[in-house]
């Protein structure tokens, strides 16, 4: 029996957004069609955009979506995060990484864009916002490798390298970026993000154990939400 549990889960994608407590919420009708078409500019989020509007305006969509998924974790995340920021790890997986920023930089070289031409920049943004100083890792993965980042996080937790680990998966592929992919590569979903907070079991009945049916169910829900069944 695993002693590692999912403390909280949040996700955002063309079909809606939510967390494991509230379930999936649909986008309001006028926004839904635009978001399904990948028009992310329509996506505004007062919780994030109003408080640090300038900072968010500078970010690429990979970072914005990753941060949004983290914000969707419920208040237990805030409580966990505050416990020991130096011992909170961040593990990111992405398939296409920063290809959108790459395409933008190739069109016009600007320092503000260059900073986002690394897939791991989203980790920096998350760590700056939440002041996390734990171990970090960014894996370029295939679509079915969510399990890999969860595995890595579980190892860190079991070996005492971190007290909590934030697993984040994100994609944000603009049409310009998609045009750079090799022929035959099919993108299931041009944008989506999820965040899972993993930690050791504490007895909270809402915790989802990493081994067994509950985890499988939550992973299925996350995968359904981000279009990666």
């Amino acid at each position, binding site marked *: 029996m695993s002693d590692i549990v999912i403390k909280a889960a949040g996700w955002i994608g063309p079909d809606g957004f939510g967390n494991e407590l509230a379930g999936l919420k649909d986008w309001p009708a006028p926004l839904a069609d635009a978001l399904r078409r990948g028009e992310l500019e329509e996506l505004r989020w007062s919780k994030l955009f109003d408080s640090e509007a300038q900072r968010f305006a500078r970010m690429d969509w990979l970072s914005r979506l990753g941060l949004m998924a983290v914000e969707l974790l419920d208040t237990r995340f805030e409580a966990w995060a505050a416990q020991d920021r130096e011992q909170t790890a961040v593990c990111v997986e992405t398939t296409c990484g920063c290809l959108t920023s790459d395409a933008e930089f190739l069109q016009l070289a600007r320092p503000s864009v260059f*900073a986002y031409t690394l897939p791991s920049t989203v980790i920096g943004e998350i*760590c700056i916002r939440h002041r996390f100083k734990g171990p970090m890792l960014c894996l370029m993965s295939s679509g079915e490798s969510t399990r890999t980042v969860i595995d890595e996080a579980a190892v860190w937790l079991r070996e005492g390298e971190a007290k909590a680990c934030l697993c984040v998966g994100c994609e944000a592929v603009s049409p310009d970026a998609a045009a750079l992919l090799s022929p035959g590569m099919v993108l299931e979903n041009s944008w989506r993000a999820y965040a899972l907070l993993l930690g050791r079991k504490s007895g909270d009945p809402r915790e989802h154990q990493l081994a067994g049916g509950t985890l499988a169910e939550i992973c299925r829900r996350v995968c359904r939400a981000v279009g990666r069944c």
Partner: protein
Amino acid sequence: MGAALETTLNRRKAALRPRRSARPRAAVAGCGAISATGAGVESLADALRENRSALRANAAYAGRGYQTTVAGWVPEETIAQLAARNPDYADARAFLLADAALREAENGLPTVAAERRALVLSTTKADILALERVFHRQPCSETAHRHVLPRLLAYDLAEAHQVRGPVQCVSTACISGLLALQQGASLIERGEADMVLVAAVDLVSHFVLAGFTSLKSFDVEGCRPFDSRRTGLSLGEGAGAVALVRRDLLPSPAWTIAGWGSSNDANHLTGPSRDGSGLALAINRALQRAAVAAGEIDYVNAHGTGTPYNDNMESLALRTVFGQDIPPCSSNKGMFGHTLGAAGVLETIVCLLAARSGTLPGTPRLSEPDPVAPKSMLTQPQPAARLRCLLKINSGFGGANAALVLREDRS
């Protein structure tokens, strides 16, 4: 550094408890390298012995408004030879370099079943030259086009090297190489593989030259790590490969990946923290995992990019961890440049070559050490009194820091 911070870090250091693991250790079985110094580990060893800088200007990139074209360019004749040997991948430069480094690393190793072989690739931009060609609608083979995505480059390398076990692709800025070695060692410790091929590659291209020019990050004459006159970095291209196997598959003595650690500064996207506390945290984590005390480290291979902020930060971090007794240390970026995603692996190979020769590397292009730099910073190669524990460190964009401890195992 503030006294409070120093006290906190020292208290944390004191709280670290050595721990020993009964699980299989990962040991280094072979290495391969291609860099501005040429093809093969021996060309790198020669350059280290001579303390020679291989940085040079490149006329092919002149006149485009870059701050400089001085970088660690892999000689074109080396690329041409590799392409001639591998015509199916002739324009897939990242694959050619990584594949050649892997072949050298694998040479003469014990046979391991394909299912028990894993591959971990480290890169920041994979085949960035292919991406540029695709963007500008220039001819690009289907193979090179695939390598626009790092994971597809990893899969093609895995197939070419008979890997049927786990395949991972690490892309975590300039600490990618050390994290790839960490992941490789972890796969062996967890029993998921008996051999892990760790490959690392990055290329110099218009994209990266334009990027670092936009940040005004270059030293136009070539980088001078830890020098009081340093003004910036020099890029480099190349590939490194390290074959890791289960320790019991190798005779004694062998060099093991004893410990690793990483951290985030949580401070700035493109600049390091000013006090070095993040890097000190990563080093302490690596020492703790290796169950090695700071005083046991015999040599530190620094990140040493040559930017004013990085080298200051690194000096402070080393002082935080080692106090006034910083072990001999040096930086190789004045030799083959900052190879980004390949840096951690290539510079780890430098550590292993130092162990093999019993000679500590110098710091090419360092002539006037900054007063802030460790007094033990080596300008020239020098014989080592003892080499049993080595520390390799890197930092990168996004506040990333990583450290790796190598230890000679005589058991």
